[in-house]
């Protein structure tokens, strides 16, 4: 096929004359002279069987958009789903900067050729460090769950121990990710996961149970603040102290958008902090916006056991001029393959830049305001919902933006309620009745700064109608 006659806008050298000219210049007449390196018995005969291409950009856009149009988005419905991905306000500047082709289409260029990317990343580190109260913030990983899983593996290496403690009410997905990363019990490297009981009345970790379970075998104590069910953890400092007394690493999972008003994990001395960046100006995009951050103290063993890339600010030959470089780069899987602490790869670099833009835009006052708005709107919603006949809040107050709502005494199941809400243009909270039978027919509602009082009143009024 030395003259396919198939000229494509993405392929400059698909012009037959150019193909031929290039082949001729290197002493060939046909690309098959190169492709002959692939044995005939492994060659695809003819062309693959694929849908006809849409060569016109207009046709392509129309086709794909027509498929997308079958979605009903959270911009069209009123969304109260959270549980690991949340509706938040996205500043225009976040969209503007993440759409810049210079960032969007860059990869692993050097300290010199990609200086701006390196600086944006350092700024992300620096801004998150202030928010979280740590001196080290590393390249973010895939999402909260994988960041937590890698942090647990770090803890096992740091302590030489192979048992970790986690809250019994952590989300099933995050738990599944962690369990896989801790390896099954039939594998030599298995890290045992022991559940710590949680108070049925408020969802908080049972500190007595934690004290009885933490021991000289404990590598890490992982807890969440807020937890999957939305509850904040006033015992955070005590949990970290219990872990420290046992010689274990404390790992706190936190929501960064809460930290303008909620105490940062560094302040209660969690050794490692993880969580998701998505609330910081990143669109949900069906989960594409997730990004798992990690921060810890500036102690060499922590950096050495961290799988992700870590960058430091550097000086150049010109006084006062900065650039940036990857520290201890020889330790990662790019450097030493299977001898590395786990693996580093293409993770969520663009979202680090985005979160940096967000934090620089909001500043200390904006972060306080957005935290206050979320807490107040969420509590307003919870109080209004609890006024509905048969509706209750099984974990009470003390949450940040999410809280379970129980429909047991309404005579309706969550599935029925959510179906009726959907018919009225509302995505009800995530059904908890499968993973959390102790909560009965409950749903996890998420209320943030994007939900106005009018939105919340509409939810309450609609529920009143649905439940009557």
């Amino acid at each position, binding site marked *: 096929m030395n003259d*396919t006659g198939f000229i*494509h806008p*993405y392929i*400059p*050298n698909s012009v037959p004359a150019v*193909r031929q000219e290039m082949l001729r210049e290197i002493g060939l007449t046909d690309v098959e002279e190169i*492709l002959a*390196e*692939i044995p005939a018995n*492994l060659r695809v005969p003819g062309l*693959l069987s694929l*849908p006809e291409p849409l060569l016109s950009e207009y046709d392509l*856009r129309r086709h*794909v958009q027509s498929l997308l149009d079958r*979605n009903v988005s959270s911009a069209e419905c009123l969304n109260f*789903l959270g549980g690991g*991905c949340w509706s938040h306000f996205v500043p225009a*500047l976040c969209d503007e900067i993440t*759409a*810049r*082709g210079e960032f969007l289409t860059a*990869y692993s260029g050097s300290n*010199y*050729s990609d200086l701006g*990317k390196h*600086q944006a990343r350092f700024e992300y*580190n620096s*801004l998150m460090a*202030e*928010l979280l109260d740590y001196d080290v913030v590393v390249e973010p990983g895939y*999402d*909260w769950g994988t960041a937590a899983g890698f942090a647990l593996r770090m803890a096992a290496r740091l302590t030489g121990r192979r048992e970790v403690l986690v809250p019994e009410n952590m989300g099933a997905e995050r738990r599944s990710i962690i369990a896989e990363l801790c390896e099954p019990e039939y594998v030599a490297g298995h890290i045992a996961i022991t559940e710590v009981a949680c108070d049925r009345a408020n969802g908080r970790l049972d500190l007595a149970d934690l004290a009885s379970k933490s021991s000289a075998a404990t590598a890490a104590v992982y807890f969440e*603040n807020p937890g999957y069910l939305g509850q904040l953890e006033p015992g*955070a400092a005590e949990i970290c102290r219990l872990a420290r007394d046992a010689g274990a690493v404390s790992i706190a999972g936190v929501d960064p958008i809460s930290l303008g*008003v909620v*105490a940062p994990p560094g302040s209660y001395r969690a050794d490692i902090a993880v969580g998701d960046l998505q609330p910081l100006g990143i*669109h949900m*995009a*069906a989960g594409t916006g*997730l990004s798992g951050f990690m921060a810890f103290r*500036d102690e060499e063993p922590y950096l050495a056991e961290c799988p992700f890339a870590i960058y430091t600010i*550097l000086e150049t*030959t010109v006084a*006062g001029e900065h*650039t940036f470089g990857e*520290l*201890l780069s020889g330790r990662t*899987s790019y450097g030493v393959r*299977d001898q590395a602490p786990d693996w580093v790869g293409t993770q*969520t*670099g663009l979202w680090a830049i985005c979160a940096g833009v967000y934090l*620089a835009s909001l500043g*200390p006052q*904006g*972060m*306080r305001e*957005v935290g206050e*708005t979320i807490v*107040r709107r969420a509590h307003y919603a919870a109080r209004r919902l609890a006024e509905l006949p048969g509706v209750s809040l099984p974990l009470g107050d003390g949450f940040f933006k999410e809280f379970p709502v129980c429909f047991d005494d309404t005579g309706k199941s969550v599935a029925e309620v959510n179906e009726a809400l*959907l018919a009225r243009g509302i995505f009800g909270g995530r059904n908890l009745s499968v993973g959390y039978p102790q909560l009965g027919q409950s749903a996890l509602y998420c209320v943030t700064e994007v939900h106005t009082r009018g939105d919340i009143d509409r939810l309450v009024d609609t529920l009143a109608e649905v439940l009557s």
Partner: protein
Amino acid sequence: MSAIGTEQGGVHNEAVARRMQEKLEDNARLRREGGLLRDYQAARWDEPIAMELGRPGERGVIPPQATDVAAEVPEAAELLPRELRRSAPPALPEISQPQLVRHFTRLSEMCLGVDVTVDIGEGTCTMKYSPKVNELLARSPKMSELHPDQPEETLQGILEICYRMSRILCEISGLDEFSFQPPGGSAAVYGFAAIARAYHHERGDDVRDEVVTTIFSHPCDGACPATAGYKVVTVMPDENGYADLEALKAVLSERTAAIMITNPEDTGIFNPRIREYTDAAHAAGALCFCDQANLNGILGLTRAREAGFDACQFNLHKTFGSPHGCKGPATGALGVSSKLAPYLPAPHLVALADERAPGGLRYHLDYDCPQAIGKLRAFLGNLAVVLRAYAWTMSLGARGLREVAEVAVINNNYLEAQLREIRGIGYPYAPGVRRLDQVRYSFGELKEDTGFGTTDMRTGFCDFGVQTWFMSHHPWIVPEPFTPEPCETYSKEDIDYWAAAMKTTSDDAYESPQHFAAAPHNQSCHRIRTWERLDDPREWAVTWRAYRRKHGAARATDEE
């Protein structure tokens, strides 16, 4: 045998060599003097760190306020547990919006994405053009505002796109099912290792605790199975650069869970006897995984199934046109044969007949997957990446994919013909064998001649306005390596430019060592002085607060 890296493999042709020498001489002059090279100067803004910008009280953006519920609920502090109230505000900068836009726009200007320049150097990663129309589609609120846990009936569009894309990838690979959950190529490689673990365990076979890979397979093919608990055995190349088949056979045993390899390997050499490797592994009871992060040179030409593989992965952000985004978000589409399909992480996407649905199919997420491995990340994966990959593939079709591979192969051989005429560059392994989409070259000879290696060359090279190269080629079996991959995105002139820049960089290393050693000259900043900081815990500073603590506030404007 000469040292690896200085020997000349591949196919040599005297007439071609002379022609290429002339071409390089012609091109390696400035454009205004009749050559190709630009008088390039990168943007250099001397831009302060964001932490140094603004003044107290300035606002960048104002978020929604809770005034509408203020009468009904107490102040936020009263709603939070006393122990958890933040005592001091985070020390974030306070910057007005115009200055913020300017700051981040300037940073972006000091970054060489594919949209800006020729990025051939980051081979093995396939830096290709990411079509703009795909970005517009990904930014549609019908995509960007989807919550992944929405009721299935409200996600039918994106689920259909995922279903269609998985059918396309099945045809491209010859495999039977795909999962888009892995959020990167390495995550997919890890996902396969977890599947191998579950598969053997379910068959009552817990003896298999080893994975075999090859040294020229991607680094994650060793690292990810190690995280999954496997002991990793690495097969070294034979004298032709292929993974040594006899060495592979010697390490296969009843303990081998899987072989996890790349073909063509990072050398760009396609292993024509690949079927013997997979047959040998299968005979030992092992599974076979092909790391196809980079499929560009064989797209539509040869498939994982016919080579005997049980599974493979495609990086949709490499071969399938989704942008790299300064390293993510990404997708490693994980494909498996039907016997491994039950092990893919939940949920499994299925199409159900439904006469009321458009096209007669309704798309359903099946969470009842008892044999599935644990989740590889939350929800369904980076579906906006799948969307872009689908649009890219639908723009090309079968003929287009074939054209991508053929042009990638032609481009690579065209670049090779020029690079082998440049002083100091070695072309190791396999005389008489042509490379497909990329070549692992060596600056070993240049290092011996001049003392400058691949890192120095990388720095001098970017003074010509081209992106530097990717450095993850450890261990340096090929000394001072680099691996350009001139994929279908690049025009003949782009490749000529890249080669001319390389020739000039090499000439500088040989003839103007002082000038060369001081590079970069035309970049966004000057040469690094404090290299020791990369390994010294007292010196490194990962954040601005650590920098001020360790190095004082040399440039800080605010001394509070």
